[in-house]
């Protein structure tokens, strides 16, 4: 770095010790929590590290994981989407109904599944457009809009299912099953999809104008506007992306149990937001990292897994353990950062 005037102190770096070290620990915080959890799990149960268990946990993480990648963008740009869980239930319901309706005519085959998938994706995008337009054009707080659409989607799926469960045609289910249970090179398909989404998400966040614009908007909307960023358009896009990713998650969810009901996706929104924040994205927007979200999702899945693999005092206290671990996982990052 060229120094223009030797008589001046280094401007940008404060002369304090080891700014690099501090940065790394902040960066590695969630990773550290994850490692500690893995160590805990392994010490509690020998099967914890078995490939089957790891595959199970990762595959299960994929739904909220894919959704949480979308939530990272929404939150980074200063928004919030509470509707994702109900949206997933709704999309799953519609997909199942569409596929079931097509089977009598077109028979069981990949084509029917593909149409169902396409419908899911389009509908997801549309749902995102709806949320996004109400927020950007309607100028309503994202919290209110998505609280409202959360109720709407949840009601719709209950209505479609007539209060019960929508079940995928059994023969289609057989054809569709590999989308969740299949493996490629030993890796479950949903894990591969999740990994792809995460990598693309991380790239988009860090290496595209879109990602930068998201943080700029979340950091200071006015500055973004002054910098010739189409704030409303970018913000709308984050909700559309969120909707599409919810649809992608649904595509993997449907072949798992082949059903959708009013209980599908309950509380996924909280899980997704929690994962995003555990991963180090700031809830007020301005800074987001997709890889952190991925770790956050895995941490949350692991907590459940570990609780199921051990006898805790009482199953009534599961929620308490979850709560404590979540707080500790974040506390750990924070205090590490403070003391380094």
């Amino acid at each position, binding site marked *: 770095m*060229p120094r223009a005037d030797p008589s*001046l102190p280094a401007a940008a770096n404060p002369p304090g010790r080891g700014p690099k070290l501090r940065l790394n620990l902040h960066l590695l915080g969630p990773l550290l929590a994850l490692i500690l959890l893995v160590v805990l799990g392994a010490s509690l149960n020998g099967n914890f590290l078995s490939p089957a268990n790891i595959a199970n946990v990762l595959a299960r993480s994929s739904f909220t994981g894919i959704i949480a990648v979308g939530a990272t963008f929404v939150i980074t740009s200063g928004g919030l989407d509470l509707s994702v869980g109900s949206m997933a239930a709704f999309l799953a319901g519609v997909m199942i109904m569409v596929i079931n309706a097509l089977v009598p005519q077109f028979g069981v085959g990949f084509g029917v599944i593909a149409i169902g998938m396409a419908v899911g994706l389009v509908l997801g995008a549309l749902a995102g457009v709806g949320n996004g337009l109400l927020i950007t054009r309607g100028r309503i707080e994202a919290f209110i809009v998505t609280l409202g659409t959360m109720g709407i989607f949840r009601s719709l799926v209950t209505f479609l299912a007539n209060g019960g469960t929508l079940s995928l045609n059994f023969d289609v289910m057989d054809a569709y099953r590999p989308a969740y249970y299949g493996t490629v090179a030993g890796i479950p398909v949903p894990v591969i999809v999740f990994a792809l989404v995460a990598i693309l998400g991380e790239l988009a966040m860090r290496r595209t*104008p879109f990602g930068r614009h998201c*943080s700029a908007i979340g950091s*200071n909307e006015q500055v973004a506007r002054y910098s010739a960023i189409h704030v409303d358009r970018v913000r709308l896009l984050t909700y559309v992306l969120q909707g599409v990713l919810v649809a992608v998650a649904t595509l993997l969810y449907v072949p798992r149990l082949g059903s959708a009901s009013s209980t599908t996706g309950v509380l996924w929104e909280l899980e997704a937001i929690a994962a995003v924040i555990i991963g180090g994205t700031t809830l007020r927007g301005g800074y987001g990292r997709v890889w952190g979200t991925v770790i956050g999702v895995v941490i949350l899945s692991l907590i459940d897994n570990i609780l199921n693999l051990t006898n805790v005092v009482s199953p009534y206290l599961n929620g308490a353990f979850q709560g404590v671990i979540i707080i500790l996982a974040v506390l750990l990052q924070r205090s590490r950062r403070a003391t380094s």
Partner: protein
Amino acid sequence: MLGAAGVTDPAARHSDALLACVAVSKQFGDVQVLFDVSIALHAGEVHALIGENGAGKSTLMKILSGYLPPTGGEIVFDGAARQFSSSEAAEDAGIVLIHQEFNLAEQLTVEANIFLGREIKRGLFLDVKTMRARAQALLAALETKIDPTARVQDLAVPDKQMVEIAKALARDARVLILDEPTAVLTPKESLVLFRQIARLKAQGVAILYTSHKLDEVSAISDKITVLRDGRHVITAPAADLTEHDMARQMVGRDLSELFPPKLPPMVAETVLEVAGLSVPGYVTDASFHLRRGEILGFAGLVGSGRTELMEGLMGLRPSEGAVSVMGKPVHIRSAADAARLGLAYLTEDRKGRGLLLRSRMRPNLTLLALDRFSRILIDEAAEDRALDQAIREFDIRAPSRTVAVGNLSGGNQQKLLLAKTMLIEPEIVIIDEPTRGIDIGTKQQIYGFVQRLAAAGKSVIVISSEMAEVIGLSHRVMVMRLGRITGELEGEAIGEESIVRYAMGLDSMTKDHRAEDRLHAAR
């Protein structure tokens, strides 16, 4: 080098102006702030816009650059009437504004800010390497050592301004509009900026520039327009206006001497004694004392740690060292502790630390002194009276009492901040950059105010990057360099050269480092 571009007769080139506004007016609600203002900017010319706080300079600049629509009149660009629908449209046409208030996304890196909205891409992805290299080059041209990968929130105020300038330079401007760019810069950094301005001017860029530092204005501009109360007063070649003329045109009357004569310091007891104060990372082992009725100046280059020293003293940053107030050792752990001991600190960062921009004037004014206005409930009538008094005493010019503070002109925000700080009636007041963005007429009022404070037995510390201010006001001056106090000057010894010697480190003291000389060289 600036002179090489030459100055042509403005009247002859009025028709071929690059950007002009004709009879522009602007109204906010019921309040009109601009009345039929016309101004023409020409390629290769530096045009200065001056006027009192609230005269409408920033508003006019925002209108010219598409941030605000005018409520009357028209904008002419490249010979044709244009209505810029947005700042993007104006920027696409090559009109770039550097705002008076910072306009950076704090959580983003310097590089990301510089290219925000104009990212360089390779395929779908950002070409971070190229952007980083260009940012580095731009910053190097500005002679700063800011790291392009640093986050803006971690930068000091002057560094942010340099980033802002770099951002504007990155945009290939045909018209560059700068709204008080030097308010937060020291003379040395200002000179760097002026060299850039000269370079752009030579390339045929039209430049509109505003500042309350009239010496700068006469040094760099070719033409000067004066605004008063939203009305155009005069446009004249810079050569035809002395600084004194400018001041008179702005204020509408003759100004007396800027600094009133110093009163001799009282021979009085020490009210504040600081020994070996360190602020980790910024200040090492600072010791000084302050007497009753004394004005103590703090001089130094940007980044010398004056702000951090005072913030450490006030409990706003972690610090160690011995402090005693009125002879009693004290531990100040927060601004509230300090206030209880009669200490007040006026921050240099009025936007980030000083004022709640979305609130009105009244809650802002009383925020620090709120317990004086409340038993259990707040006495709003008393608050209103305090606001009345502050408006009178500090000459705060606001379109209405209910306006959001963020909509006040920069200088009036500064006055409000001053009023807020003084409301706790401190025995010891520390003022960091008191006249940043303040017009020349009001400066005078503030200087008078500071001297009256001292005369009334209060003690004042003034941190200022304006040499004249430190010299003109202080009974005694401490000079800082690299986080240490390197010199103390008193009475007759206070002078520009002696301060600069300490500030730069004695050995590097050579003639062409002197700020004043640079200023003349630029011309």
